[in-house]
């Protein structure tokens, strides 16, 4: 028996509505679940005091500080590399085998699992370069991980700047670099910043790559040097969640709530900024 096409269409539409809502509700549900259980325990005292009893008591001030140092360090290293790559790809060359190699490298880097970055960071930064478990080792490892994000977003941003801007700049007698520095970069800046902000968010949510490079030691003070070992929010949460006793579960939820909230704020601002930026040149 042949089902009328109209009936198939309507029933498929129902199926598609259902799976889409299921996907959205599951993902939103996870965020809601974490915030619901975690936010009540997020108090000023939790945010601004040092951890005690391996995290089961006290707050997470030193963890927040360690996280900030590591993720800011990572983008400080990755930004010049990534933006430089994007400028070269967009302004200084046309598509050829060199650009294909560069893109292949960035694509592959983006696909490498974080645990491999962790292994590499451990053997290269921690052991071979002798940087030990430190903010520096963690930041350098995360810098390599965020490189593809920064390259890709910066490339999109640079390409969004209209060709006419470049032509006008040449017509005024500017060299290529003057054109890039005075015209294209300022025009692309909001988009480039979006990439950097996204990289901050990705670095913040990372666990496997930092656990073997920045260490798991729970510091009882704000770190003072790049050689200090720290524990990031994601690592702290993982350890509380898996090794902790029932007593540390409220702290685990509260840490997760901070982590999720911070990442949502970062991502929302990055996406709005990018949309506004791309709309400007449309």
């Amino acid at each position: 028996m042949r089902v009328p096409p109209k009936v198939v269409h309507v029933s498929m539409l129902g199926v598609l509505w259902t799976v889409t809502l299921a996907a959205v509700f599951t993902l939103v549900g996870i965020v809601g679940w974490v915030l619901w259980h975690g936010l009540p325990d997020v108090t000023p005292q939790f945010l601004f005091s040092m951890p005690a009893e391996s995290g089961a008591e006290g707050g997470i001030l030193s963890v927040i500080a360690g996280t900030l140092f590591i993720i800011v360090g990572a983008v400080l290293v990755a930004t010049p590399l990534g933006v430089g790559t994007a400028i070269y790809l967009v302004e200084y060359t046309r598509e050829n085998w060199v650009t294909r190699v560069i893109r292949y490298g960035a694509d592959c880097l983006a696909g490498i699992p974080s645990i491999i970055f962790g292994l590499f960071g451990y053997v290269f930064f921690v052991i071979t370069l002798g940087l030990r478990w430190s903010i520096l080792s963690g930041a350098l490892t995360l810098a390599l991980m965020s490189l593809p994000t920064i390259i890709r977003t910066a490339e999109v941003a640079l390409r969004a700047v209209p060709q006419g801007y470049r032509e006008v700049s040449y017509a005024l007698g500017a060299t290529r670099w003057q054109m890039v520095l005075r015209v294209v970069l300022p025009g692309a800046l909001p988009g480039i910043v979006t990439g950097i902000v996204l990289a901050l968010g990705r670095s913040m949510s990372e666990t496997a790559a930092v656990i073997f490079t920045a260490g798991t030691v729970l510091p009882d003070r704000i770190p003072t040097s790049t050689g200090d070992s720290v524990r990031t929010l994601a690592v702290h949460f993982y350890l509380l969640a898996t090794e902790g006793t029932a007593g540390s579960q409220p702290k685990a939820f509260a840490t997760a709530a901070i982590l999720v909230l911070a990442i949502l704020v970062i991502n929302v601002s990055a996406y709005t900024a990018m949309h506004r930026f791309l709309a400007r040149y449309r």
Partner: protein
Amino acid sequence: MKREEAIRLTLLGLAMSAVTALAVITTFILKEGLPVIFRHGPASFLFGSDWSPSAEPPVFGVFAMIAGTFAVTFGALGIGVPVGLGSAIFLSEFAPRRVATILKPALELLAGIPSVVFGFMGMLVLLPFIRTHVGGQGASVLAGSTILGIMILPTVISISMDALRSVPRSYREGSFALGATGWQTTWKVTLPAARPGLVAAVILGMGRAVGETMAVIMVTGNTVQMPKSFLAPVRTLTSNIALEMSYADGEHREALFATGVILFAIIMALNTIANSVGRLGRKRS
């Protein structure tokens, strides 16, 4: 013009950073991992399913973990691909404009949820649910597949949507003009035209599932054994590295890098396939 040339070369140098990083990472992982594979024989390392690093002499076989990785990954694809592709089709072809403009960014933002949070949710909600309603201890292939299936959704959805959106409007209009319904157009015209991109989306989702570590550790039980059923606990390649790295030394540590070599090879193969399939699609359209 000397200054301009110097600037160009500097930028070229910076542009090589990603490739250089990739080369250095590959070199170090291979250098640390390959010796132990050849010392014990590639066959016994790859196809041995006994992992006893503290035995005398130690035995390193990763086959059970390769099997565990693929069991969990294919399970994840079984959940993530139909739901992900369905959502992508809905959002790009059928959703009312207002619904799409709300749901699409929502899904993109959720790509940023840390994997540890997924794992935690799995531990506290999914494992007890499986234990009471399905059976077994809870920590299992099923639990890993479910969590990973959810985690790969944003990847699968956003890449498939790009593929669907790059199908020219005129294809759809031609189909409608012939009197096809919306679903007939999608099934017979849009989906086949977008196929390379959709395949790339599935392969990249698979890559994410194979490479995921923390969430998997928290829900699969981590017992080194061949996956006999969906309710049996397993250990994946990634979990093996993360679980033992903190205390391993000497040859044991090398064996963990060797596990990394296998993982690396699987990921590179998947990336290369996704890359060439994607290129094939671009060439055709």
